[in-house]
């Protein structure tokens, strides 16, 4: 599945992008560290950083556990007044057939707490999910800081 919905916005300034494969539990840790670094680049607060890192941890874990592995694109998009961190998780797994169920608190097909997707949606300023059964899933989340 092409991550079209998830292409990072273009912008001026200190842009950077990094793709991290998600194949093992160690990769999930790596994603958390890279997201923390990206959040530091845009000067995010401690609370905002914790929120994004936690959401990234949830989504990376889902990519691994349910998507059968995949990757995340971490983009830092600098603008004049707003600096943004965008994360795009992509996998080519079975996809999600009932999205509203998957986004319901407590719903899990894997014996989890079922709070990862819904939690990530609450934790992030922007949250978008697209999934095609049999093709895969793309989740895009973003956070930003404003400059006066």
């Amino acid at each position, binding site marked *: 599945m092409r991550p079209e919905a998830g292409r990072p916005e273009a912008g001026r300034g200190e842009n950077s992008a990094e793709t991290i494969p998600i194949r093992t539990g160690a990769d999930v*840790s790596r994603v958390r560290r890279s997201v923390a670094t990206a959040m530091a680049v845009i000067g995010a607060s401690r609370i905002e950083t914790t929120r994004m890192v*936690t959401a990234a941890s949830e989504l990376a874990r889902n990519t691994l556990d349910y998507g059968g592995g995949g990757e995340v694109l971490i983009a830092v998009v600098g603008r004049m007044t707003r600096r943004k961190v965008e994360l795009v998780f992509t996998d080519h797994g079975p996809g999600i057939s009932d999205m509203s169920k998957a986004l319901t608190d407590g719903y899990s097909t894997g014996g989890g707490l079922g709070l990862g997707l819904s939690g990530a949606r609450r934790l992030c300023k922007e949250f978008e999910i697209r999934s095609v059964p049999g093709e895969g899933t793309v989740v895009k989340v973003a956070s930003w800081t404003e400059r006066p």
Partner: protein
Amino acid sequence: MPDSTGSNLPGLLSRYQDRILTDWIAAQSEVGVLRADLMREAELRRQSRSFLSHLIAATKNGLNFDIESEQWQDVRDMLTEVTNFRVDHGFTPTETATFILALKQPIFECLRDQYKDDPATLVNEAWSATVLLDKLGLYTNDIYLRGREDIIQRQQQEMLELSTPVVQLWDRIVALPLIGTLDSARAQIVMENLLEAVVESKAEIVIIDITGVPTVDTLVAQHLLKTAAAAKLMGAECIISGIRPQIAQTIVHLGVELPQVATKADLQSAFAHALKRTGVTFSATKPAHTR
């Protein structure tokens, strides 16, 4: 004694055994396999002699290139011993394989002497020797990697155990300061260590301090909940301490509820709470409770 492969290599090996051994050990010292810093010469000599006699025994009924077969069992065992010795002593994979590869030159020289008037046979025999020794050399590589994996796994395991120490704070109160990522492997060990400590110290209160855990996501929360539930089954109450403001906020946003667990901002308040729960009180002059 030509065999099915038509090779006379087995006969040559036993005829020139002493010479091959001497030249081989010399070659190993030359190419730097004898890492004097890592291994004594006597040990190298012992390993080389032993390997050569196993090699001769394995080929005495004819050369068979299938080194996974029964007749190569003793050679494989010997190579495993030789390789694991080198893994433990810090040799590189190349240095380890060179043990076998350094045997080529001495064998070639014997072949050259033996067949100086018969170049066609010389080429055939040299080819057989090369194929065989390359196979055995690659085999050490496989063993080497396996040995390294074992060591890495063992070290990881040891580190995991070291990094989850359960400390007894007071009579019937134990604490577990968690530091780092609480992945599933580690959560398993944490749970085991903790339950063991609960039994050993007859703990009634277990304090899990997560000040050092950078991210509390739903997987970590689930592990904490399971650990608390298991502690409860053993008759101990669980307190989670060290919940920083940003962690409290994320837990709330995730929608995680911790119904059976008391939570405290820091270890001190958790400890004070635990003392109260176990009925310990202090007066200014003398402690009401002695161990």
